[in-house]
């Protein structure tokens, strides 16, 4: 028996927590302590067990085995008392969209039994804290993502809980609002509250005081993030200023036995060495490539990959089999003054850019910025209100179906047909793109071989391990050998190893001359792109290489600016300009 610790020095105690759903083991024996006054990150890819652990801590479910003690209360036995001590913000914030801001607040205040005469003061305090004061009568459904998140937080904070549980609060929220949330959480922990922040974004982990790293239901690491990243000290390097193609260089460096992991980061290549290896081999490689080898601060994501045994190799079996793309003309995707209105609302406002052959082009922006609308117009799924879009020189308005044959599309969350087997999914995709007879059989066989899908042909896609699911989705989008590949949020929520494998293929394809278009709100993904277009409020606010965009941020301290910093900086610039121009108008 484990003694129940009621001492305030521990906010949450996890004691051998197991949770099974039928045959699925979502959590496999988690031990750990969460401290008050401390921001604890619950980090891991989708399906790692984060939400399950959150729900267990909130007393919404009972563990199959083990015990959870929250603020000195057992999560099962004292679940009624527990709810008075926790604040829980589920994914999508748990708000009633058809109630106003104030009505939502009042509901939660009543449910939590707050004294009626304290309502006004509490609401005032929370509204000021979340800066929602001017919007009290607005319906929650009409708020922006960032504002919804703040209202959700305010509702969860209603009774000043001892433990605040936030389940993926950063999803679908623009970086500026996320920044705001960090500030608020900081203030809360300073007051002694224990805050648990679940996230699939590994870069968010670095901001936490402590981290629980989950993977496939197992606790891989618990402690300060720096403790984990320090393991990579002296092993993290960056290759700079080389004169060769960086993707080619990356695939070569990943094949070195002393290298465990490597990714493209803007113009540089990040390399992590194996634990007991010497850096001579890499130094020699760098010298040969004419590159500068520079030690760098390790990142949390790299540490995670290292913890899982290193990343995949650098050669894409897929790309090797593809013939190089030959194409006349330089610009594969082109749009000019592309505009789309939905009623009075303009979703995409005069967007223009060109994408060259073999380029990886990123379209970034918070939810609602207009990137999906722009993307859909480029794929021929939506007609522009004004302006034109061309793919491989074909005007989508005139030659829509002809242009569509030249492009491959991989939708969010892979969008495979769950009721069809792997084989049937492949056959369907081949059929849809007009492949027939011997050619169809040959292409399917080729994909099955390349991606080693052989033993899964009869299974349903949902039974596949995530990595294989991703391969299948990629295979379905590529069988007809498209000249342009559209990827919609291709790796958000995916574990870093699967993501690296994915980008190895994408890099290989780009090298063969396939043009890649990516949309994402995931700032890390932008680093893989050659050029990035930032969208904000339907407009294109910046278009450049990741390095140039990052360089525009004034560096404070020795911290390197991230893509997210760059994004926030640019958005703030736009907001300041807007404010200044409206001031002038007012005057």
């Amino acid at each position, binding site marked *: 028996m484990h003694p129940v610790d009621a001492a305030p020095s521990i906010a949450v105690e996890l004691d051998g927590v197991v949770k099974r759903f039928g045959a699925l083991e979502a959590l496999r024996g988690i031990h750990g302590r969460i401290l008050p006054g401390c921001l604890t990150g619950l980090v891991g890819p989708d399906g790692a067990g984060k939400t399950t652990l959150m*729900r267990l801590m*909130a*007393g*919404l*479910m*009972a563990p199959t085995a083990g015990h959870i003690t929250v603020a000195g209360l057992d999560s099962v036995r004292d679940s*009624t008392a527990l*709810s*008075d001590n*926790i*604040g*829980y*913000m*589920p*994914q*999508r*914030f*748990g*708000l*009633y*969209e*058809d*109630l106003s801001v104030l*009505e939502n607040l*009042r*509901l*939660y205040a*009543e*449910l*939590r*039994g707050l004294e009626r005469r304290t309502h006004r003061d509490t609401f005032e305090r929370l509204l000021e804290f979340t800066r929602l004061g001017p919007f009290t009568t607005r319906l929650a459904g009409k708020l922006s993502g960032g504002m919804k998140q703040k209202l*959700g937080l305010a*509702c*969860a904070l209603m009774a000043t809980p001892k433990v605040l549980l936030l389940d993926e609060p950063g999803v679908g929220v623009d970086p500026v609002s996320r920044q705001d949330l960090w500030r608020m959480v900081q203030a809360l922990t300073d007051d002694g509250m224990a805050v648990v922040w679940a996230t699939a974004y590994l870069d968010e982990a670095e901001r936490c005081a402590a981290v629980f790293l989950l993977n496939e239901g197992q606790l891989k690491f618990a402690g300060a993030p720096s403790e984990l990243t320090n393991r990579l000290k002296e092993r993290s390097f960056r290759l700079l200023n080389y004169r060769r193609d960086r993707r080619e260089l990356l695939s070569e460096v990943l094949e070195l036995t002393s290298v465990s992991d490597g990714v493209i980061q803007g113009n540089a290549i990040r390399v992590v060495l194996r634990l007991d290896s010497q850096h001579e081999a890499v130094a020699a490689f760098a010298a040969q490539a004419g590159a500068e080898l520079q030690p760098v601060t390790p990142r949390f994501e790299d540490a995670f990959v290292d913890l899982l045994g290193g990343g995949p190799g650098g050669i894409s079996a897929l790309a090797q089999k593809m013939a190089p793309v030959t194409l006349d003309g330089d610009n594969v995707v082109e749009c000019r003054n592309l505009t789309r209105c939905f009623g009075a609302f303009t979703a995409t406002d005069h967007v223009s850019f060109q994408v060259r052959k073999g380029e990886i082009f990123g379209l970034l922006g918070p939810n609602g910025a207009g990137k999906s609308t722009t993307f859909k117009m480029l794929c021929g799924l939506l007609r522009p209100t004004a302006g034109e879009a061309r793919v491989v020189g074909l005007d989508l308005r005139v030659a829509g179906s002809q242009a569509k044959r030249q492009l491959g599309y991989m939708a969010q969350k892979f969008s495979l047909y769950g009721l069809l087997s792997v084989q049937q999914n492949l056959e369907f995709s081949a059929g849809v793109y007009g492949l027939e007879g011997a050619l169809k059989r040959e292409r399917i066989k080729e994909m099955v071989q390349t991606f080693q899908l052989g033993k899964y042909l009869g299974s349903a896609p949902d039974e596949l391990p995530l990595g294989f699911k991703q391969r299948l989705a990629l295979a379905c989008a590529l069988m007809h050998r498209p000249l342009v590949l559209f990827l919609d949020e291709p790796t958000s929520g995916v574990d870093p190893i699967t993501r690296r494998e994915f980008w190895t293929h994408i890099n290989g394809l780009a090298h063969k001359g396939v043009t890649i278009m990516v949309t994402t709100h995931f700032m890390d993904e932008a680093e893989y792109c050659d050029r990035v277009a930032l969208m904000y409020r339907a407009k294109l606010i910046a278009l450049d290489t990741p390095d140039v965009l990052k360089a525009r941020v004034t560096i404070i301290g020795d911290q390197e600016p991230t893509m997210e910093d760059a994004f926030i900086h640019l958005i703030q610039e736009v907001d300041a300009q807007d404010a200044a121009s409206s001031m002038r108008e007012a005057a």
Partner: protein
Amino acid sequence: MNLRRLIALVRKESLQVIRDPSTFLIAFVLPVILLFLFAYAVSLDIRKVAIGVVLESDGAAAQSLAAAFSGTRYFQVTPARDRREVAGEVIASRLKGYVVIPQDFERRLATNTASALVQVITDGSQPNTAGFVAGYAQGVIAQWLAGQVGQSTPPVIDVRSRFWFNPEIESRRFLVPGAIAIIMTMIGTLLTALVVAREWERGTMEALLSTPARVVEILIGKLLPYFVLGLLATLGSALLAVFVFDVPLRGSWFTLLLLSAVFLVPALGQGLMISALAKNQFIAAQAALFSGFLPAFLLSGFLFEIDSMPTPIRLLTFIVPARHFVASLQTVFLAGDVWAVMLPNMAAMLAIGVVFFALAKAKTRKSLDA
């Protein structure tokens, strides 16, 4: 149970009901449409059915019978001399059948043998109408015969039928009360199933459950507004039935509302049970339609008479709450406050309701774990 939390939940739910246009549509617009349909479009009465009468004989008796057919208000007669004139019309479905008065009609009548007097041909592709044509035709002939006989000897037995409760035998009078049962099933079962599933879908149930609010409070907080909404919709439908469609209300308004209140117990219970099992609105809607709406339509005795169903199905109707409700509603509208009929029905509805609530409660408790 905490009254303050309950009031907060009822308030929240009521605000949502008021702001959600689909609730308003189901509770107030749909009833109007349904009532209009059942009152005007669906009619089980036969009046002015188009038939042909083929008069092959020129005798006085034959002429008189043909006149009897023309005289009745149930038929609209197309006279003919040859059956070939009307056969094509029946095939084209312009006539629902025809009656042949044969050449030797007078001889047949005189010999008074068992041989058939006339021939009736009906369009069997519409069995209901065909049955009416055959039945009414026989009625006309029987009446005519009685008249003929009456000239010589007085009848031994004079049969005069009289229809109680619905003397005009207007189908509207029993269809409209039935329609109210359908509407109440929609509001009680479908709406409740949908709103709880919506809380799961939007993730708000999770947030509610993490507060001190209990499951019982959350569920009662949901049911109360829909209970009131259901009674309002009944009242609206009944007003429409009485003042627009001229359906008599022989019982009292109080009894009508009491019956509706009792019926809402199984209807809401069923909705709650569905919502405990289905966590998304699509499945909830399907389940509500199949387990609530269809039985209420087919097995309640509203359209199809229960007495003419095979025994196993007839037994099955006893677990359909709408059956008991339809029987009571027809009683209160057409007969009056006959408690001997309504009390057993109310008891049955309450019993079914209790079963639904017990099942819903058993299933809801571990909902997030399921």
